[in-house]
């Protein structure tokens, strides 16, 4: 048998996010506490006249850019990277944006059914990851692009944590940027997954998700590596788990089996019992099936115990591949401030969410925090964060 290698603790040295509620976590956090939502009519980015849905959480000034010469995704990513401190030059970069080529495809397609650039110069995920390295002055071009749908940055953080725990890397940066583009908006619209009103996670009357613009970057590292570069330890990433529910390519397993397995793997990795968790930042998309599945998984792992549950997607929309990393940034704030934000949009909690999720700030004095994401293809991922 293989001997278990000694594992290094994984620390978080920096986290930044750009959302429709502001250009940083420091602007996002108070807005969440106030229960604000950035979801509103799509003004100028594209026409929704022929669709049944018309709202998203867009960052307005991105709409003045004209792709392809001015990529909104690149601009969003650059704004996010501006919020990072100087990083160790050997930092390994994992790019987890999921639909970076949407803008490219939209621009190419126009009225041309066979755009030549798609065949001669296709836009690839590494076209985001490599500029991140260049912009941050990282010496290494060694990195990875990862796509696991809406669980991408969550899984990117899990893989980055594994690299550090196994002693393969000293520091890993996980970053992503995704837009509420015409490509994705139209797709979720015809899937009838969008809310015709507003995203209301865990509400008895929830009726779908809202899309949002978002970018995030999270730096993981060994404590000594972070301290030696003058970086703080904002929190610890102690558990991670990934599992497929093997149920359906776009619908979650009603019994929550994949999410349950991911949470249990994360608890095992963190060597924690379910009782050690004090809060849960859910995927909470606001679709009837997703939220029901999450509540089923929560009850399966944690029983009837009630502790704070929240989702931020009613505030900033579903930011696809960036969502997990943004939520990790919010969890760090929750750990530091010892409270969790309201679930914006939630007015009438469904019965199983009663005493867990609410429209008010909840105290979170002790324990670790769990954050999870699930995505197309049946994938589920869970992370556990603890205080520094």
């Amino acid at each position: 048998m293989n001997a278990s290698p000694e594992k290094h603790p994984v620390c978080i040295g920096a986290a930044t996010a750009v959302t429709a509620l502001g250009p940083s976590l420091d602007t996002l956090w108070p807005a969440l506490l106030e229960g604000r939502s950035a979801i509103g009519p799509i003004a100028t980015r594209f026409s929704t006249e022929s669709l049944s849905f018309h709202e998203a959480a867009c960052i307005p000034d991105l709409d003045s850019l004209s792709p392809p010469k001015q990529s909104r995704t690149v601009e969003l990513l650059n704004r996010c990277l501006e919020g990072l401190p100087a990083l160790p030059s050997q930092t390994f970069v994992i790019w987890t944006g999921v639909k970076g080529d949407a803008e490219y495809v939209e621009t190419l397609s126009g009225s041309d059914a066979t755009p030549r650039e798609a065949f001669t110069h296709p836009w690839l995920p590494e076209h985001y990851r490599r500029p991140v390295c260049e912009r941050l002055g990282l010496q290494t071009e060694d990195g990875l692009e990862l796509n696991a749908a809406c669980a991408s940055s969550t899984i990117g953080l899990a893989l980055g944590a594994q690299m550090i725990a196994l002693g393969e890397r000293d520091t890993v940066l996980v970053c992503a940027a995704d837009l509420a583009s015409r490509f994705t908006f139209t797709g979720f619209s015809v899937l009838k997954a969008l809310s015709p009103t507003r995203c209301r996670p865990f509400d008895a009357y929830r009726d779908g998700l809202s899309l949002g613009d978002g970018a995030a970057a999270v730096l993981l590292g060994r404590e000594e590596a972070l301290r030696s570069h003058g970086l703080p330890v904002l929190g610890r990433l102690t558990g991670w788990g990934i599992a497929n529910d093997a149920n359906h390519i776009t619908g979650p397993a009603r019994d929550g089996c994949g999410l349950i397995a991911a949470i249990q793997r994360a608890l095992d990795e963190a060597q924690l019992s379910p009782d050690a968790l004090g809060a849960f930042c859910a995927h909470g998309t606001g679709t009837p099936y997703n939220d029901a599945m999450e509540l089923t998984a929560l009850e399966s792992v944690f029983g009837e115990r009630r502790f704070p549950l929240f989702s931020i997607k009613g505030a900033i929309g579903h930011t696809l591949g960036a969502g997990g990393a943004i939520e990790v940034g919010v969890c760090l704030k929750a750990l530091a401030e010892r409270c969790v934000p309201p679930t914006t949009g939630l007015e009438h909690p469904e019965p199983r969410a009663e005493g867990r999720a609410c429209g008010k700030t909840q105290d979170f004095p002790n324990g670790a925090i769990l954050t999870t994401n699930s995505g197309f293809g049946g994938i589920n991922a869970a992370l556990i964060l603890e205080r520094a």
Partner: protein
Amino acid sequence: MKLTLTGGAWITAGGRGLLSDGSKPLLAPGEPLLPRGKDLFDPPLARYGRFDRYTRLGCAAVALALRDAGLAETGRKRPIGIVSASRTECLETDLAYYRTTLENGGAFASPNLFCYTQPGIVLGECAVHFGLTGPTLCVGQPLTGSGLGASALDTACRLLEAGQAETMLAGWIEAPPVAPDDWPQSERLVFPTGAIFVVLRPETDSAEPAQQALFRENGTLWKTTGDRRVPIQSLLDLF
């Protein structure tokens, strides 16, 4: 960490083969000839014939690799995961889907095509059919400086080492958009089309059949040939 390679399969324009038959993947230009669905999936994978090229290639190669490893059963869930590398992923489907949004303001866009604009859907199809509950994710295949599928192999090994699955498939799928016939050769993508998957698990004390013993040390995967250690830099090095 000691690992065992228990199976593998490849499909390219140069033909197809299994790890167990000793064949070497041939990265020839052109379009691969895919096996029929009824020769791959029992029970049938209903939509196989209607899948886009990327999804069909991936499902076929995963099915053959699982069969080669003696793991092609269905009907129960197992902690097996898949990591797949690609350059162009599902770009062809992205273009096809987006074309459906251009008329009537997007009101009649194809929901079916939209679902397949996520590159991991092919892995989800395999997970559902074969009951695979391990991690499923796609990673990039760099344009230069990295062997075919090396990023997938590295990621799959790391997931095994971290105990996130009992068995992992690592592979590569490439189905770049097909240029119109009348386009000059200089305007066609030179990436080969095809799919290759191998099946890996940690070495155990049990006497299960192994096709090759491997070990991973300091982030590098190695095989032993005679008394020499040979680094694995590509999926091709495993056949």
